[in-house]
């Protein structure tokens, strides 16, 4: 039986976790008759990332903006910590909710540090105190504190987005709304930002409502994923592994994509994978593949007939998934994946056949992930 992927977030998925944001039969119709949202009921629970995903026109951004009253529903209720937000003063409500948008929306006329300090200053804290908090947050989101004195235009898109996240965290809001925050950056930077968010979230445990049109992002980040249809109806609300293994209908199946079988592997831990011995050494590898290690037993290169070939993707055995293990095997020039420990030292080899065999043994992956 494959063990559960090391995402610790899977652990607290039970319905007993306190609801923080509740949508109760929420609808939004505009005076011209356009219906942005028909009737949506949804609960985002404490400390979880709840993702709203769907094609454009499904009302996901409208839904998000109802939480901080940038949009008011025409029917139904939105509850924050059990209280209807409809009765709250919008500005005061918003100061208590972090918000990150696409392109970050940083203030071009303020330094990075003052951008991050915005909400604390609005909350009445002294500028000095706010800047101290801001400087800490910059480090927390993986930025050099020296960027604090720069203006946003002097940063790359990925850096700006990190500043955007830091700014949303600065008010110590327990709830974060993120509206396609990583959509405008290139895929490599996006993956970095996603990793960073998961790392931050494991430290901070905020309640996050996250909007995206990218199902891969939804599956990667979400503790729970809500798939919305055009016109604003909920197609399925489930854990990502369940979304992949048992989509509710054709729309969801189509939306999660064709290679969902492969992507489901990322929710399966590879803890019981049997590692093989790999031929190692500094020799020239005549007659076969040899993995060259440095003094600390970290893989440096594959060598074959005196030629060096890059190692391909390494599989980190601490918390790696079956997807990572399979990818390590498939991307290795020698046909054998390289497994390393947390410090990058060699543990052993991975054969694709062993991964497939392990997959066969885990008969009910969705069940295993729960």
């Amino acid at each position, binding site marked *: 039986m494959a063990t559960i992927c090391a995402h610790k977030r899977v652990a607290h998925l039970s319905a007993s976790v306190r609801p923080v944001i509740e949508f109760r039969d929420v609808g939004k119709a505009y005076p011209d008759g356009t219906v942005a949202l028909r009737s949506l009921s949804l609960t985002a629970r404490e400390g979880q990332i709840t993702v709203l995903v769907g094609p454009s026109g499904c009302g996901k951004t409208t839904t998000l903006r109802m939480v*901080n009253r*940038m949009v008011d529903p025409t029917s139904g209720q939105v509850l924050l910590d059990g209280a209807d937000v409809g009765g709250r003063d*919008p*500005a*005061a*409500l*918003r*100061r208590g909710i972090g*918000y990150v*948008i*696409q*392109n*970050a*929306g*940083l*203030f*071009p*006329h*303020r330094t990075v540090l003052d951008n991050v300090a*915005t*909400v604390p200053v*609005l909350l009445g804290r002294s500028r000095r105190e706010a800047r101290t908090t801001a400087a800490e947050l910059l480090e927390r989101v*993986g*930025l*050099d504190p*020296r*960027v604090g004195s*720069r*203006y946003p*235009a*002097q*940063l*790359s898109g*990925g*850096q700006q987005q*990190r500043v*955007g996240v830091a*700014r949303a965290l600065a008010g110590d809001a327990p709830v974060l*709304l993120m509206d396609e925050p990583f959509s405008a950056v290139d895929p490599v930077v996006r993956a*970095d930002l996603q*990793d*960073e968010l998961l*790392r931050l979230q494991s430290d901070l445990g905020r309640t996050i409502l996250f909007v995206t049109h990218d199902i891969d992002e939804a599956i990667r980040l979400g503790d729970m994923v809500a798939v919305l249809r055009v016109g604003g109806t909920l197609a399925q609300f489930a854990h990502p592994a369940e979304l992949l293994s048992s989509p509710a209908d054709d729309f969801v199946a189509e939306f999660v994509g064709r290679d969902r079988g492969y992507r489901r592997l990322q929710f399966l831990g590879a803890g019981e994978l049997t590692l093989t011995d790999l031929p190692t050494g500094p020799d020239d590898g005549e007659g076969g593949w040899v993995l060259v290690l440095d003094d600390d037993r970290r893989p440096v290169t594959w060598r074959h007939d005196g030629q060096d070939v890059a190692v391909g993707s390494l599989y980190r055995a601490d918390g790696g998934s079956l997807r990572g293990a399979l990818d390590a095997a498939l991307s290795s020039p020698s046909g054998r994946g390289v497994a390393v420990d947390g410090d990058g030292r060699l543990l052993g080899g991975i054969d694709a056949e062993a991964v497939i065999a392990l997959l066969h043994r885990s008969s009910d992956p969705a069940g295993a992930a729960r």
Partner: protein
Amino acid sequence: MRLFGEDILPLAAEHVVLAVVPVLIGLVISLVLGWWAWRVPAVRRVLVPLTGVLYTIPSLALFVVMPLILGTRILDPLNVAAALVLYAVALLVRTVVDGLDEVPDDVMTAAVAMGYRPGGLLVGVQLPLAVPVLIGGLRVATVSSFSLVAVGAIIGQGALGALFTQGFERFYTAQIVFGLVSIVVLALIFDALWVLVGRLLAPWTRAARGPGRSAAEDDATVGARV
């Protein structure tokens, strides 16, 4: 300093006051009107074209009509000043609307989402971001004002413009040229002052395109790269 039988320095000082003060008053009025027009589309549709038409009224006609509107005496300096305020408003209302339009949508969204109220938004976000556009409009309005003051000489309130009227009466070219050059120089000085004010108020505009540390060559991101 006496030149051409006139005490030049007081005349120059008068010219500066007559040209600059109405622009500043016009700016305050335009900020109010421009913000209103920016918020309410119906107001914008009326106000922006209207102020445009205002600027096409010949200045001399306006100087002459002013006493009728304000109830002042024909030779009251207030006539010229009030007309110049009107011209400044004519130029600056559109500038203010354009400047507020200039604020990017995502910046506005982010500001509202962070809990800015309308007043704080205007002072803390919109106006600072409109500074480059505002400075552009103020430069045009100020230079225009310096030349319009001279026209006031025809109704006896032209400050340095008096050098023209007297020069023409005496067919004294040197006096006319001196008047012309001194007005142009004063206008350029104040034009440069606005540029300086713009730099002080909006240092970020130079940072944006300034040379040196660009994000690409100096990636300050640390960590997170596994």
